[in-house]
């Protein structure tokens, strides 16, 4: 146990060092690069929100765009009407996102798996249509211009980068803490089998609503930051494309591998956004879609899954020599290393 704790502590120290370096990043980058970094950070935040609901919750939701759009429109409309500070608008957007996420979950309680994906997808189309046509509220297809202020001054790319980074840090902290506590274990069991979860007394409905609400908070903050970043919110905020792009990142990295997302997402987004190379930009969507197919075929747990498997393999080798025991990290859940039998695979719903 002591071993495990030192290992984790070392991991946490490493994370803190990395975050410190990321905080220093804008001082060495040019203005354009800072904007790119802010855009990447916002998309990473959205990927983490999808991870919350899909990876840890186990619900295949295509509604990330809905909550993202609600966050963006909240900041845009409220900011336009009241002129509030971004530090007030973002929490309001977060509350809106939580409510939207919870409402989405409540309507989906009876639907399972694929139907849940479809209902959430349907919401994004309905809201997109409403945003296009309800001109008096949303500015219609032209959208609303967002002029966010923070402490009286217009928001700069650097500030948005810092805000997104803080949000990422908090989200990551919560995800890592929850992963191994009561809620995380309840999620793990419910993910494997909802019936089993209910049998041991987990209120699976409440768990689902809470997971969606939590994910909604993160996605709405990402939306709010995006609104101030881009300066114009239009119905394309609700676009299915954004959900698909986020899904691509999360699937390639692995649905339950937040650290791998932190590494993979910037690489993927950098290649996608640095449109200096026209020919490359043309091929990027095709390449990414192919990558998703390859990942699903070769390593269904994503790149993070490969990393995990390699680590296990290495520890398994090192266990054979007595001094190798030093490096062993015990899995926290005793069930995790059991081989997957045919029966268990079917119980998983496959």
């Amino acid at each position, binding site marked *: 146990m002591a071993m495990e704790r030192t290992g984790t502590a070392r991991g946490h120290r490493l994370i803190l060092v990395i975050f410190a370096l990321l905080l220093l990043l804008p001082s060495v980058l040019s203005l354009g690069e800072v904007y790119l970094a802010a855009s990447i950070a916002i998309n990473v935040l959205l990927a983490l929100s999808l991870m919350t609901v899909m990876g840890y919750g186990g619900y*295949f939701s295509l509604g990330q765009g809905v909550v993202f759009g609600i966050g963006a429109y909240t900041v845009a409309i409220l900011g336009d009407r009241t002129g509030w500070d971004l530090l007030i608008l973002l929490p309001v957007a977060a509350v809106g996102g939580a409510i939207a996420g919870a409402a989405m979950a409540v*309507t*989906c309680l*009876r*639907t*399972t*798996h*694929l*139907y849940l*994906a*479809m*209902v959430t*997808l*349907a*919401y994004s*189309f*309905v809201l*997109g*249509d*409403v945003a*296009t*046509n309800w001109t008096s509220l949303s500015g219609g297809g032209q959208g609303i211009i967002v002029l966010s202020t923070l402490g009286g001054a217009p928001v700069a790319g650097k500030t948005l980068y810092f805000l997104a980074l803080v949000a990422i840090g908090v989200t990551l902290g919560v995800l890592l803490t929850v992963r191994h506590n009561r809620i995380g274990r309840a999620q793990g069991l419910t993910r494997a089998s909802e019936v089993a979860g209910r049998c041991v007394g987990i209120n699976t409905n409440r768990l689902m609503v809470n997971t969606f609400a939590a994910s909604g908070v993160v996605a709405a903050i990402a939306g709010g930051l995006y609104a101030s970043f881009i300066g114009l919110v239009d119905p394309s905020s609700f676009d*299915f494309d954004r959900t*698909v792009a986020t*899904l*691509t990142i999360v*699937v390639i990295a692995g649905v339950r591998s937040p650290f791998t997302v932190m590494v993979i997402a910037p690489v993927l987004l950098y290649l996608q956004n640095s449109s200096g190379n026209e020919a490359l930009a*043309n*091929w990027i*969507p*095709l390449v*990414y*879609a*192919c990558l*998703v*197919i390859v990942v*699903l*075929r070769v390593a*269904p747990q994503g790149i993070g899954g490969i990393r995990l498997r390699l680590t296990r393999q290495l520890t398994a080798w090192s266990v054979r020599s007595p001094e190798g025991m030093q490096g062993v990290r015990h899995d926290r859940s005793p069930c995790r290393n059991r081989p997957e039998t045919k029966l268990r*695979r079917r119980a*998983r*719903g*496959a």
Partner: protein
Amino acid sequence: MSELVQLLVAGVTVGIIYATIAVGYATIYSATGVISFTLGAQAMVSGYLFYVVLAPWPPLPSAVASVALGAITSLALWIVVFEPIFRREGAMPTVIASFAVSVVMQETVRILASADVRAAPSPFGESILRIRGVAITAHTLGTIAMAGILLAAVGLAFRSRRALLVKAIFQDRMMAQALGVKDSMIINLIFLVSGAATAVAGVLLAPLSSLTPFTGVYIALVGFVGATLGGITGVAASALGAILLGVVQSLFAGYVSASYTNALVFGVLAVVLILKPSGLLTTHERARV
């Protein structure tokens, strides 16, 4: 009165095309439990084959070639991409893979043929029949005839005794195998049929809507909404649901608002899935444990 009839005709025309795609969904779902979102992209590709690549050919051989290629593509995708994922990981990752494949097809077409909107003149000609103020185009008649024949054929095939094998595979694949059902062959056949139906839909739909690489997603979703509306487990129910969707969409666009049709389509989907997930036209729910 004639306006109502006109809208109904338009609705049925679009609806029957949706129905051919919905039948593709229903046949695949009833054998494997997978929803293949690639169908929309497949329809789009067939449209490009017919109206762009094979445009110099006379309509009949070009149609046969597009439909044959559509069927083969569908089967190849199942064998090469979906089947290995489905066997190891189950239905959900397969659905994600089908999204990815649909993006691959869309991007390939965009890179090869550019994102421009292409003209798609109807293969049935431009003549218009007028009956008491209701205009019926040759395309409408041709569409209803072609799609109607196709739907009837698939419907009859699924009423045969042999179609029970599909139900057997769906309910317990291992048991069906043990009893000597050649499950993989039947599933291959189903992918061929759904691919062909989708290709027909793609060719028929292009003159009514626009032909761009990005239409695939919309076709996939509308076909799925239609299938779910009727009940995706049944071939006839899903076809009827899709026709109903086409009619409702057309009436809504004509009488209420044309700009809210997306909201209508997907609002209908959400309400149906929330209130009666098994579809409007099915009587019993099937549980898979």
